[in-house]
């Protein structure tokens, strides 16, 4: 009888280079991901097309609950506020609303979106450096919380409050010089140079607003939890100073967002899932910083966190299909897939983990993964050691839940379907793929052309 034949695989040749193996001298393993939350990737694509964004309700809920449970163990009064800009698809916002989060918005349209979703004013926080008079008026009338970013906004708030005949409770945003991360001093009032204290004095003298809150957001993808210890200690000491010296009682402290997800920054050597701090490390740093409140008022201030990416990034997947294999001039293999930087802006920041959605064999080879755009910058991975792929193979790009389905754009190709898989395995479209009609609906051709 004939020997069974070996399956054919395209011949390859890979030159050995340093730096492919991890610190244990192994090539990093790639495990296929054939299912997302129990749903076969192949079935999802057959039903909803490719590319396809998939969100896992289970992951969102478990992340949110994990953070809340850790906070509850260490601080008596806290509240999460979902950062809309991180992902404001209605279904996503509703999941966080159902989990008890408030809404944190930074523009009029985000504010309206929260209201339309039924979030009451009293559970909306309005941040941002460019609030319009109209959104300020809406927020003040309804009783939303506003964090003031700069002196001009302070005057504008006073003007609107005066017109409405109210004296609202507000917060100010403060920024700090911290030892381990760059200072985001373009937002809020600087603490170290005395600007924050001047803002408070100015607000108190104005007598039209009541200072009740302090807000900061020290950065994003902050990999060093001790930055939170330092910032929280500074904000707590500031609250204590305002109490002791000016008799002000700070009712809430909002520490913004910024926790890292398990993605890997281009500048990071080790993969994110090995180095990203855990929620408990961040929470521990924050609660240690809060110990500096020490007697600043009889009641603990309410602690807000506006955690964005760390709650949603791991819940998002992007399925894509291999369109072509090609060779670059240096012999390196390139793969063209049907999603690119216009759907996945975060590939500019991260080396996203990308795994085949089917079993694979064969020799790994340095590979560039390119998107479908006719643009040099449309690179999903510039160099990844990858097994052979065939056209039609599916890939799953992981940890894409934050900032992509808000910052994506329609460019050269249309935006794809987005689905969510519920905790009991139901899968539904949460945003339909665009059609040419959606695209042209807003356009006009003037009659004189």
């Amino acid at each position, binding site marked *: 009888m004939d020997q069974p034949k070996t399956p054919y695989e395209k011949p*390859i040749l890979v030159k050995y280079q340093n730096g492919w193996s991890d610190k244990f001298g192994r090539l990093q393993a790639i495990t296929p991901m054939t299912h997302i939350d129990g749903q076969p990737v192949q079935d999802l694509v057959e039903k909803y097309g490719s590319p396809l964004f998939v969100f896992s309700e289970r992951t969102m809920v478990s992340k949110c609950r994990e953070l809340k449970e850790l906070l509850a163990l260490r601080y008596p009064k806290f509240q999460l506020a979902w950062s809309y800009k991180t992902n404001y698809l209605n279904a996503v916002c509703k999941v966080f609303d159902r989990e008890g989060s408030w809404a944190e918005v930074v523009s009029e349209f985000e504010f309206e979106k929260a209201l339309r979703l039924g979030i009451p004013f009293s559970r909306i926080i309005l941040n941002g450096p460019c609030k319009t008079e109209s959104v300020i008026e809406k927020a003040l009338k309804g009783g939303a919380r506003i964090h003031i970013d700069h002196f001009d906004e302070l005057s504008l708030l006073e003007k609107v409050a005066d017109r409405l005949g109210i004296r609202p409770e507000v917060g100010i945003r403060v920024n700090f010089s911290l030892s381990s991360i760059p200072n985001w001093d373009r937002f809020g009032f600087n603490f170290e140079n005395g600007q924050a204290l001047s803002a408070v004095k100015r607000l108190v003298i104005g007598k039209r607003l009541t200072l009740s809150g302090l807000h900061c957001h020290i950065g994003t993808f902050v990999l060093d939890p001790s930055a939170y210890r330092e910032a929280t200690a500074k904000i707590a000491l500031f609250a204590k100073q305002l109490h002791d010296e000016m008799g002000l009682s700070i009712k809430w402290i909002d520490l913004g967002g910024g926790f890292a997800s398990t993605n890997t920054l281009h500048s990071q050597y080790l993969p994110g899932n090995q180095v990203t701090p855990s929620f408990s490390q961040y929470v521990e740093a924050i609660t240690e910083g809060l110990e500096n409140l020490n007697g600043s008022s009889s009641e603990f201030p309410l602690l807000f966190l506006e955690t964005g990416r760390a709650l949603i990034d791991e819940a998002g997947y992007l399925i894509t299909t291999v369109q072509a294999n090609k060779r670059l001039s*240096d012999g390196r293999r390139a793969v063209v897939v049907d999603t690119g930087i216009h759907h996945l802006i975060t590939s500019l920041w991260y080396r996203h983990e990308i795994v085949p959605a089917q079993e694979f064999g064969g020799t790994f080879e340095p590979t560039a993964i390119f998107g479908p755009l006719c643009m040099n910058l449309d690179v999903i991975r510039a160099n990844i050691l990858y097994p052979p792929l065939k056209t039609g193979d599916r890939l799953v790009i992981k940890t894409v839940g934050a900032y992509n389905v808000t910052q994506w754009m329609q460019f050269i190709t249309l935006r794809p379907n987005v689905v969510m898989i519920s905790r009991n395995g139901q899968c539904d479209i949460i945003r339909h793929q665009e059609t040419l009609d959606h695209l042209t609906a807003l356009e006009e051709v003037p009659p004189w052309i």
Partner: protein
Amino acid sequence: MDMALLNRLKDIAISDSGFIFDPYSGATFNTNETGRFILQLLKEGNGIDAIQSEIRNHFKTSEEDLRSDIYEFINLLKEAQLLPKNFKF
């Protein structure tokens, strides 16, 4: 095929696992089973058609034309200087 080339190819060490060592440059490479198979046939002096039909006999494939894969591999060998740039079947 000319003798000098055949000798150069003969000197290249290929292990069963596809590890290639070029004693002239000291460079090391990895290839898959198909690559190893083709290199062996090249060492024996086979041309493109012979290589294509040998692949068909040995491997399970439904691909109609394997020549583009073979030429691509030859180009990779040239790029790696395991074959001279002017090598022709």
